[in-house]
Every structure is written in structure tokens, then in C-alpha cells.
């Protein structure tokens, strides 16, 4: 009887409060997000459809077709794709090795700890580290010179492949951190069930293991793609921040200090393009994650 009485007397009180006060509890969060994220972003998106006299126009969007902007986007997309695939494969294999690959347990813990650090060790110091490694005076460059291989002038850390090598340094650990739990979620019984039905190791991976992991692998690679696409500091440090022939983020950054394009609307459109690509990434990622979560629910 007690619960009934309580429902009758106190429930309406809670509900009345719900209308006026409940939403107030999350107001600080939404105000903060609105002021520092939503409003500025929306206003940039909106302004990219306005000209200098604040009239509606598509000119800014069309102007994204300028050759140097297109080449900048293409450069960024290629860099992101290469490092997402490269980092994804290397990181995936490493995650496999330390989880179900039969390596001693302490190695797994060590790699995961290190990955936690390395995935956050990026930007300016990472660029320094690679200059000290593969720069003109870098330690590895010297080693190679000592055995008769000269990297320079054919190679440059500031080139596409140089940048890729540096980016992969923070891509691998991110892949490891996300994929290690996925590998550990592979149930031993799946493998045993497959084996008892006559499957070889190859059959198991071809029909069971890889298909189960595929959404996670692809999803994480999409995440890596976005991770590289949005990166700014590492590229800035390595390339010096010139606005020609460079990644999109640097092109956008250059718009803040000076309007290098002499057209504020175009700067906004540049940012819009970036948001759209990142939005597609996160959408794809979320979809792939749901797919695998649904399978693994039961």
C-alpha cells in the first residue's frame, strides 16, 4: 500500500517541477555549448551563403572550385586516406598481436599504456621528434648515411610522404586503443564452433572473424581519417604554415590572422567544406558502430 500512497501524493509535485525546473538543470551546459560552439559554427555556415552585402549567394561555395583550394582539399583527403589506411592496418595488426595473437600479457598492458600517451603526443613536439629523427640532421638520417643510404634530397619530411609518416605516429595508437577491446570481444566459442564444423583458421577469419570485426575496423579507420583531416598543429610545424599547396586546416588557419583570400565569404565556405566532410565521417562512424553493436548485443 505504501508505494501507492506515495505515487498519489508526491508524483504530481515532481511533475509540476519538471516543467519549470528540470530543464534548468542542463541550461549551463547548453548555454556554454551554444556560446562557444553552436552559435559560432552556425553563423560561419550561414555566412558562407552570404556575400559582403549580406545577400544570399552561392558564389562562395562555387569559389571553392578554385584550383589551389581544390588541390588543397585533395591533398588533405589523400593524406587522411593514406594515414588512415596505413595507421589502421599497422595499428590493427598491432592490436591483434597484443590481444589474441598470443603475446605475453605484460606486453599488451605496456602497448596500451604507451598508446594512451602516444595518441595524445602530437602537434608541435611530435614534429620536433621527427625532425630529430628523419630531418636533415636527424639521428636515423645519419645512421642511414653511415651505411651508405642518403635520404636527402629525394626525401623530405615536409613532403606528402614525410607528413604521412609523422601522422601515422598518432594514428597507430588511436587504432590500437579502439581495436584492442574489439579483438578481446571476439569470443573463443566462435572460433571453436567454426573449428568443430570443419573450418580451418583461414575459413574462420574469412567467414566469421573478419566479418564480425569489419564494422569496427572500418569505423575506426573513418575516425582516423577525420583525425588526420582535422589535424593542424603537426602540419603547421612541419610546413611552416604557408597557404599554398598545403592541408586545408592551414589554409583555414591563415584566414584568421589575415584574410589571405581577400574574401571573407570564401574563408567561411572553406570552413563549411571541412565541417561537411567531418560530419560525414562521424555519421559513417556512428552507423558502423551501431551495426557492430547490434550484432554483438546478443
Amino acid at each position, binding site marked *: 500500500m505504501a508505494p501507492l500512497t506515495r505515487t498519489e501524493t508526491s508524483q504530481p509535485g515532481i511533475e509540476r517541477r519538471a516543467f519549470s525546473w528540470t530543464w534548468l538543470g542542463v541550461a549551463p551546459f547548453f548555454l556554454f555549448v551554444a556560446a562557444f560552439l553552436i552559435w559560432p559554427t552556425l553563423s560561419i555556415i550561414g555566412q558562407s551563403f552570404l556575400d559582403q552585402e549580406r545577400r544570399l549567394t552561392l558564389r562562395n561555395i562555387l569559389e571553392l572550385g578554385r584550383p589551389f583550394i581544390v588541390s588543397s582539399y585533395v591533398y588533405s583527403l589523400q593524406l587522411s586516406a593514406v594515414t588512415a589506411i596505413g595507421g589502421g592496418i599497422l595499428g590493427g595488426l598491432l592490436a591483434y598481436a597484443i590481444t589474441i595473437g598470443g603475446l605475453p600479457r605484460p606486453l599488451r598492458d605496456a602497448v596500451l599504456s604507451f598508446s594512451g600517451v602516444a595518441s595524445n603526443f602530437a602537434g608541435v613536439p611530435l614534429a620536433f621528434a621527427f625532425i630529430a629523427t628523419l630531418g636533415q640532421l636527424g639521428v636515423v638520417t645519419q645512421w642511414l648515411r653511415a651505411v651508405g643510404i642518403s635520404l636527402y634530397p629525394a626525401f623530405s619530411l615536409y613532403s606528402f610522404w614525410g607528413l604521412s609518416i609523422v601522422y601515422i605516429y598518432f594514428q597507430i595508437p588511436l587504432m590500437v586503443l579502439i581495436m584492442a577491446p574489439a579483438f578481446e570481444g571476439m*569470443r573463443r*566459442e*566462435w572460433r*571453436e*564452433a*567454426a*573449428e*568443430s*564444423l*570443419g*573450418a*580451418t583458421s583461414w*575459413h574462420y577469419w574469412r*567467414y*566469421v572473424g573478419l*566479418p*564480425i570485426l569489419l564494422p569496427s575496423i572500418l569505423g575506426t579507420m573513418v575516425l582516423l581519417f577525420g583525425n588526420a583531416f582535422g589535424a593542424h598543429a603537426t602540419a603547421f610545424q612541419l610546413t611552416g604554415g604557408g597557404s599554398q599547396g598545403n592541408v586545408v586546416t592551414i589554409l583555414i588557419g591563415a584566414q584568421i590572422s589575415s584574410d589571405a583570400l581577400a574574401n571573407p565569404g570564401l574563408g567561411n565556405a572553406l570552413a563549411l567544406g571541412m565541417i561537411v566532410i567531418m560530419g560525414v565521417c562521424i555519421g559513417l562512424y556512428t552507423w558502423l558502430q551501431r551495426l557492430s553493436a*547490434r*550484432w*554483438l*548485443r*546478443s
Partner: protein
Amino acid sequence: MAFLELINIHKSFGASVAVENFNLAVERGEFVSFLGPSGCGKTTTLRMIAGFEKPTAGRIIIDGVDVTDTPPNRRNIGMVFQSYALFPNMTVADNIGFGLKIARRPASEIRARVEELLRIIHMSEFGRRYPYQLSGGQQQRVALARALAIQPKLLLLDEPLSALDAKIRASLRQEIREIQRQLGITTIYVTHDQEEAMALSDRIVVMSRGRIEQIGTPFEVYNFPATRFVASFVGTLNLIQATVVDAAIGLVTVEGQLVRVARPLTQHRSGDAISLAIRPELIALNGQVNGEVNRLSGTVEDVTFLGSIVRVRLGLASNKLHFDLFNNPQLRPPQPGSSITVQFAPEACLVLGEEAASAHPISASAAQAA
């Protein structure tokens, strides 16, 4: 020659021994259960038959072929796991057809076989569903069909019903038994549930601490437990402290009341303390059985209504005795506090060895009986 033979199987993981001295011969078409508490080695033994574990010593022979060193994927054994282990990325039909697809059977044959199996498990409508869309009981039926699809020589089930709730457990148990009879497939069934083992099996292998305690039909294991462990693990049991009066004619005393045992106590001498084991259902209220009987008097301490039966706890001076009455609305069950006398046949008394007199397991099984 038996269809499946396990000869002198030993298995140890590092220093700890999981299974030792395991010998078993299973006939074609037989349904054998491995019964025991967790950690008794039953699952390890099953996994050795499947090939997932390699025996430290001993041979495994299936249908005359020594498979001890054969990898699991060449043994042609169907396995059903406690956690279903359906492939989450495949439909029900693809799961069932997986083994045939690996064996490169023609698509039409696979389709026909899958449909046949779906019919057998009463799930013809579910071929296109994914595992996550099924209930636990449905998933386990699909897992069973998947194991049967390859027409295995042996079907191994590792606690297949443990993850399901009670009602589905009972109905699926029945279904498993019917399918097994229908197909005549040799089956090994691992369980810790004695009721399940008795309902399903042709024979039960009771295990404890890596060793076989007894092999026998459910009837034998229940009525004639070979060891103290079997007696206490299978079914509920009264354990009574008694003192031998005359070993030659099987006469003992329980707190001053004389009790006759059906056999001479060859291993005991007068004055020895022994444990008598009596099943609760073999004890009746005084006056209901004719012929030579034992009688014990005591005070009713507790009456528990269990539906079809009523379980009564009778207190003697220091022993407790549980016995069962069939429910009968016309009869008033004994009332707590009243003094009554119960009777049981000399044949109902099992005499357990002297090591049985240790206090701990008695209280454990008394608790189980309660």
C-alpha cells in the same frame, strides 16, 4: 567395440591436475552425461573429445580411429556451447549451413539440409533472422541444428541449457532428447544439474575433482550410489549417525532405536560409528507399509509444502530426518511439535564408509536436503 573410447585420459594444466585416470566406453547411439560440480573436469574432458584440448596422456578413439592427435576441424564432431556461440554476422540459415559450406557441398544440397533442420527444431520461419533477433532458447536450438547439419559422428553439448530460464530449460531438454532419439546420434552431455542428467541420459558419468566417481544408468546412480560423493551429489539424502550393534546381521542403533540394514556390515565391527544414508521418498509414516520395517520416532520440527509433495523434517535427539509425503488435500499433514513414528525398509538404508563419518559433508548434505 565401443563407438567412443576414452582410454586412461590424463590432463593437467601446469601443476594442477584437471582430469586423471579417465576411462569410458560409449556405445553407438548412446546418450551419456558427465555430471559433477564446477571444476570437476567434465568440461575439460568434453573439450578433449572435441579436440580443443590435448590430453597429457591417454588415447581417444572414435569409431575405431585414434583421433588423439587429430585437430578439431577434422574430427567431424558437432558441438553446442553454453553461450550458444552463433556467428552474429550470419543469418540463422547461414549459421546452420556453415559446416556444409566449408565442406564445399552444392548450394542446393545445403539449402535442402538447412530447411530440413529448421523443420526439426520447429523454426522454419526463422531462416532469415539474425541471432540478435532470437531469444536464448531459439538461439540454442539453432546452435543444435548447426551442430547436427554436418551429420557429425558425435554430438557434444556443454551445459547447453544453463543460460536459459527454468521453463524453456525443461521444454528444450525434452526437445534435445527427442531429436537425439530420432537421429540416433551418439551424444555426450555435460551438466552440473543432476535432474537434467537423469532425465536425459542412458548413462551418467559422475565426476568429482578430475576423477570418475561412478558410471551407471540414472536408476543405478540414484538408487545405488557407489561413493559417498555420488550419494550426496545426486538427489537429496538423509545422513544419519549410527552405531553398529551386530555387524554380521546388519543391526545398528540410531540414538538407542534399533535399525536393521539389508546387508551384513562386513567391513565393520560392533561398536563402530557409521553413517546411514536414506532417500527422503523411501521414508513413510508409520503403518503404511507391510513387511519387515525399521521404525524411528521423533518430533516434527518443520513442514514444507512443495506442491506435489510435502517435506517433513523430523528431529531425533541429534539426527535430523527429512521425509516426503504425497500431497493429499483430504489428509492433514503432521503438525510441528507433534511426536510421530516413521518407517522404512532395511533395503532403503545405504551404509557409507567410515570416512563418511566426518562431520562437514554431513551438514552440507543435510542442508541440501532441507
